[in-house]
């Protein structure tokens, strides 16, 4: 079992739910990345998803697109993010997950990228434009290393496809809770609960819900049907406005509610 899954599993066996915030690397400058990781770790998050900005982020909503544009304007690249992570303090022990589109990985070179991830202690990868059919070469490169390839499952995935995706899953399964892109939303599809329950039954690894989760009420609602949640836009927006109290509040409310 890879480290990422172990950490989430131990969270679950303690009767807790996982809470994974997403941050955009380079938004606010790469020099604040490591201090943000430490800040989030001290709030008690389970793992941290680090987004790599991309020129054509087709799976991202407005908030994260804008954060990505700011990060690109700062000269942020996949290589520079990995270099920055390599310099983080020993105090940062929370598992780190990289979310990147595929092309920067191809430009880096799959083999070199995986070696670099291993070297800096990245524990998971989320690649939104790499469905299972196309993930062969990256999957093979990750077999013997402690980096999990986290698959996405969507509301539109039929049951036989879900079964196949989760059977290969490592770390956790990322349950996309809306048809659409990341961002703030008020309501979820009414079939969502049933979908999440079915997914949890099928999956041998933990199931975390993401996309469109922005309030502690939503965290509690979705947490009830999964092993935890990923919160992106709300965290990205709060960091951008430098509203650290809001982040602390969101994480603390969420984790305390989830524990109950």
């Amino acid at each position, binding site marked *: 079992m890879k480290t990422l899954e172990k950490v989430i599993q131990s969270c679950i066996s303690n009767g807790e739910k996982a809470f994974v915030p997403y941050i955009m690397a380079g938004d606010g400058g790469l020099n604040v990345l490591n201090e943000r990781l430490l800040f989030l770790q001290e709030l008690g998050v389970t793992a941290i998803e680090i987004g790599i900005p991309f*020129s054509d982020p*087709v799976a991202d909503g407005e908030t994260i697109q804008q954060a990505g544009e700011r990060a690109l304007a700062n000269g942020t690249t996949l290589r520079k993010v990995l270099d920055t992570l390599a310099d983080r303090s020993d105090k940062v022990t929370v598992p780190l997950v990289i979310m990147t589109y595929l092309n*920067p990985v191809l430009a880096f070179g799959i083999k070199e990228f995986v070696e670099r991830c291993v070297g800096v202690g990245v524990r998971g990868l989320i690649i939104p434009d*790499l469905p299972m059919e196309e993930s062969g070469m990256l999957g093979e490169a990750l077999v013997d290393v402690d980096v999990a390839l986290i698959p996405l499952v969507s509301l539109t995935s039929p049951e036989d496809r879900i079964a196949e995706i989760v059977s290969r899953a490592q770390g956790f399964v990322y349950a996309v809770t*809306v048809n659409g892109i990341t961002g703030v939303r008020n309501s979820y599809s009414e079939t969502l609960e049933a979908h999440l329950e079915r997914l949890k039954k099928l999956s041998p690894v933990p199931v975390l819900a993401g996309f469109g989760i922005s309030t502690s009420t939503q965290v509690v609602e979705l947490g009830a049907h999964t092993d935890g949640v990923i919160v992106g836009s709300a965290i990205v927006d709060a960091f951008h406005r430098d509203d650290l109290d809001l982040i602390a509040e969101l994480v603390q409310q969420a984790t305390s509610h989830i524990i109950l």
Partner: protein
Amino acid sequence: MVIEMRKGRYGKFGGQYVPETLMTALTELEQAYEEAKADPSFQEELDHYLRDFVGRENPLYFAERLTKLAGGAKIFLKREDLNHTGAHKINNSLGQALLAMRMGKRKIVAETGAGQHGVATATACALFGLECVVFMGKEDIRRQELNVFRMELLGTKVVSVDKGAGTLKDAVNEALRYWVANVEDTHYILGSALGPHPFPEIVRDFQRVIGVETRRQIVEKEGRLPDAVVACIGGGSNAIGMFHPFVDDADVALYGVEAAGSGVATGKHAAAIADGKEGVLHGAYMYVLQDADGFIQEAHSISAGLDYPAVGPEHCHLHDIGRVTYTAVTDAEALEGLQVLAKTEGIIPALESAHAVKFAVDLASTMSSDKIVVVCLSGRGDKDMQTVREALGGGTR
């Protein structure tokens, strides 16, 4: 490099690099398309609209004065510019609209660069009473204002995209986002031989009518196949439609003409085969204009329809195996091609097609008079008059 030898691959190119939310829609589309292909009534219905609505078949025209001017091979023009809506794009839009209805989808989303695909799709949607949203880059809206008006007259909602450079790439990004959010009742009519499988195949098959007619017509007129066939390439839909029926004819040389913008060496161009690297954009593995970090670069061309930083996967493969020769023509050369055709033949081509015309004239001039060159005249130039006028400084002198 990610290479999976499976369906939807052209050599190592193609594939389905899309968010999971779209995978089911792509599978459904693939099944619906396979069924439609096997159903003679589908092709009959499409043929009916191509004949009575689009006006096919369109002529293969011997350009006598242009031939004299070039002073070499005979030049023939495949007149896609005479189609209803003024370009080859309608062939694909009609086919995909019929396919969408077969799948029970009555909402359509599309992207457009020059506006030709947007107008063609808006037209097909008006014809069949479908709801249509078209995403178009802000810069392209400026360049092709009248096409926006045409789409709106046809009942389509045009959404301006101000991200990036506001051109075709950005419009595709937004159309994909829209499709992801509305996939359950909406079909995406992709306009070029691009994107995830099965789009490159569907678009090619609907555009093959260009090459199929050309082949029959040249044999009728000249009693033999041409020595060379020339087409312009943005994403590559008119070119793949023209080339595909000739791919197995080893004696027919095929030439794809990319947009060299200000010149390939300047970096301001749209020539992805000349200057791109392998990578993934909009769901397919292709040659893509990108920097060392894998960020996609903006393309540059005077022609909005060629202003795209990649080339469809089948073209990438035809380049790799050496079956098609890809070359590039600059903005200035394309303007020259446009004026030459206007003055010698009374035909004002689209700026896209003018790239092919310019190369074909140069090519013909190096060949003997018993040779034959066919050019795909993919669209007419009405939409470009403002751009051309600006580029020529207000006049033709």
